[in-house]
């Protein structure tokens, strides 16, 4: 082969690469960004979306001109139904679930600022937030998308090939940003597997010496006026931004499974939980006024069937309401949204400082009544602790 033929052949191989590969990636669209061609059996299932959702989700909010956005950690991504009629005002608002797995307070704070800066936004449901203001230097490019990464990268090509290959697999995401997490995983065959799964998420909830039958200590709730320093500046900033832009802001304290509430009580954490809620409610009232409809705080503490699904219920994973103690399914989220955006108040309450004592008392009464009727709670809690301890121990020595 002459050097001329070699050079021309090399160039001939590269030039198509610069056009064919981006074209394939654009058509298959493994990251669900372009959304021009969606064909069942070809590219409808997006198995690699999860690995890259941080790359595209914020850009999608901009691109789709989303008007109603849900933002939080995986609890919100899995459980808050983005197409809920109340949330979307009867389908009139274009909605998107911008929540991200493992998102922590600082990341959520930056994403919230980004969301509130979107001209199209009318409603923001925010969960998993912290009150501090944290720097967003890492998140300066939110809303932008790197087309090179989407079209001409090794990762994009790999994702495209996997998308084409795995069309028979279960769709774990929806186009509007919701994730089914472990709901359809085939590794949960019985209640023992569910117990293991609950225990994995429970390891972080373990404490040195939980006190059985511990009473809630009302006197330990800190009801002091919240400071106006950096420790609350983040939340204040978010509320002010929402007020300035006339955006409805719903702050959500995610529902938890009763086993987690019981563990928190026995570990002495519930007083801090209610103190934090008091502080948030106070900040909302200071910034938005005592009876604001534009900024609201919602809490879902309670001992109801909805968040007291037994681990040993003999129900298959896909039919369950809870995947573990923190991840609830959209059935639970729907009832929560019914309360916020409708009139069905069976689950959840709007929290104000004025109603705070009433909410506390009502919650405590509900808890007592529930525990009397449901002795399984303590049994499953003990088993859950043992399983979590065992997992923690095994984790230390497993290769």
């Amino acid at each position: 082969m002459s050097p001329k033929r070699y050079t021309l052949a090399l160039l001939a191989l590269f030039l198509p690469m610069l056009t064919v590969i981006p074209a394939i990636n654009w058509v298959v669209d493994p990251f669900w960004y372009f959304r021009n061609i969606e064909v069942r059996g070809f590219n409808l299932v997006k198995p690699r979306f999860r690995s890259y959702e941080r790359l595209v989700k914020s850009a999608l909010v901009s691109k789709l001109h989303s008007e109603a956005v849900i933002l939080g950690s995986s609890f919100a991504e899995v459980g808050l139904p983005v197409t809920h009629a109340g949330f979307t005002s009867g389908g009139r608002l274009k909605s998107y679930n911008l929540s991200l797995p493992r998102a922590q307070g600082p990341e959520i704070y930056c994403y919230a600022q980004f969301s509130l800066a979107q001209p199209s936004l009318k409603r923001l449901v925010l969960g998993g937030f912290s009150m501090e203001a944290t720097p967003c230097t890492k998140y300066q490019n939110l809303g932008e998308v790197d087309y090179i990464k989407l079209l001409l990268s090794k990762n994009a090509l790999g994702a495209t090939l996997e998308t084409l290959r795995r069309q028979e697999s279960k769709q774990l995401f929806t186009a509007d940003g919701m994730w089914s997490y472990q709901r359809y995983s085939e590794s949960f065959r019985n209640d023992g597997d569910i117990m293991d799964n609950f225990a994995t998420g429970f390891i972080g909830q373990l404490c040195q010496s939980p006190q059985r039958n511990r009473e809630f200590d009302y006197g330990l709730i800190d009801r002091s006026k919240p400071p106006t320093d950096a420790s609350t500046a983040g939340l204040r900033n978010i509320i002010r931004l929402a007020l300035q832009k006339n955006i409805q802001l719903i702050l959500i304290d995610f529902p938890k499974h009763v086993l987690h509430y019981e563990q928190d009580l026995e570990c002495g954490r519930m007083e801090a939980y209610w103190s934090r809620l008091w502080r948030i409610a106070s900040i909302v009232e200071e910034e938005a006024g005592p009876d604001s409809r534009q900024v609201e705080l919602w809490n879902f503490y309670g001992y109801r069937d909805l968040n007291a699904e037994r681990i040993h219920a003999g129900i298959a994973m896909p039919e369950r309401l809870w995947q573990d103690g923190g991840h609830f399914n959209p059935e639970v989220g729907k009832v929560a949204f019914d309360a916020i955006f409708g009139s069905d108040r069976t689950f959840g309450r709007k929290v104000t400082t004025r109603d705070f004592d009433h909410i506390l008392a009502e919650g405590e009464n509900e808890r007592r009544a529930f525990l009397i009727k449901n002795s399984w709670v303590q049994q499953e809690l003990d088993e859950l602790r043992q399983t979590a301890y065992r997992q923690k121990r095994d984790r230390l020595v497993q290769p």
Partner: protein
Amino acid sequence: MLFNSYPFIVLFLPATLLGFFLLAKGAHRLAAAWLAAASIFFYGWWNPAYVLLLLASIGLNYVFGVRLARLHAAGRDEHAGRLLAMAVVANLLLLCYYKYAGFFLTNLGILAGTPLDLAVIALPLGISFFTFTQIAFLVDARRGKAKEYSLIHYCLFVTYFPHLIAGPILHHGEMMPQFGNNSTYRVKWRNLAVGLTLFLIGLYKKTVLADGIAEFVGPTFNAAAAGSAPTLLDAWCAALAYTFQIYFDFSGYSDMAIGLSRLFGIVLPLNFDSPYKATSIVDFWRRWHITLSRFLRDYLYFSLGGNRKGTARRYLNLFLTMLLGGFWHGAGWTFICWGALHGIYLMFNHGWGSLCRALRFEPKSLPGWTAFARLITFIAVVVAWVFFRAANVDAALVMLKGMAGMNGLLSPECLLTYWSAFGNWLIDQGADFPESNCFDGDAIKFTWIWVLIVVCWTFPNTQEILATYRPALVSPGYRNIMPGQSALNWMWNPTLGWLTVIAGLGIYAVLSISEFSEFIYFRF
């Protein structure tokens, strides 16, 4: 603009190449001017403000150079010496202001007990390289070695984009004749084939190998800088990962630079020759960043007296040359330590050589000596890289303690489950197994390291593979790479097989350009 970026590969390079050869049909000077203008555009892409600085530096040095040559021709050596001293000082002052002023003031402030901080000055890209290139030119002009003084060619010599940002550091004498040679301006398919091949191999080294292993470097070095103590295994893994990161980063860059230049028919000097195959530190410096070590030898070591002033002075000169070489890499104590360490290594190396000669001892005749010498040299180099990479001297010492096993001999605890009885025996002997995370995801790290060790120690380098086509200029005193020298006799030729291999590597490399990733040597 980075070589490993789409704007460069898709727009800048084809446009520059096309413009160069089209203009060359009309007038060679025009083509050279085009290439110089494109190179200035390439430089300005990063920060247009510093283009003026670059042009001012070129203008002043050109005037100095022409004047020095005239003085030399007129035999006015004393006057020429004063002018040269002035010109070199001017260059060094510029370099000191941009690169070292902050460092000196900070340390002066520490000594004086008062903070003396200068406003942060952005380091102009490649300033160390174009300053050194031009100092060499001035010295050569003073010695009467620089022959050609065309302004366009001089401007191209300094700004020529394949070398402008991170070398190789060029000699006036090896470039100007090529710029003046008519055959340079003719399209030669052989040059295009060789250039493209070199560029794609270099791109693969950078985007796949160097960037691939880079993710294993940061966490441990950053943790050490934050005060946590890495264990033996973590510390060695991070140090080795960095050793290979910098190797493939710089070697990839050098291949790309040489390949790019070859596309324009210009052959650059060899900068890299499998340095981790070196069997001594002296050998290492004949293989690593060859044009820098050549510069340091010719313009610093020799100027200090070299080996002409006795043994003690020779060792001192060696040490000082390496110390300043380290400082050239960056204004920081870590770079000074790195340079000093290499200076000490060189002193020991020369001392050992002298001792062997005195005792008439030929260690190379011992079985396995070459492998042993290579291993010892490699370990010494790895230890020195720790200073080069660490955020500060304290962090480097923490890493070195980890590498010495002073933060726990073996890690992590889960090794016990692998080794059972052997692990228990080690405990009985006093070995410590601190509790830490197990090898989650570490298998890939070990695989990377082992694969890259094998590549570095056994594979022929790019220059060897393309030796038939003389891809780079070899300076006197350095290894003359000839075809068929390497154990694995991989000789590139424009064949279908090589086309498939290079296209495969190239496509994979181009697809790997998805992250913004600078070359490590861009910072120097």
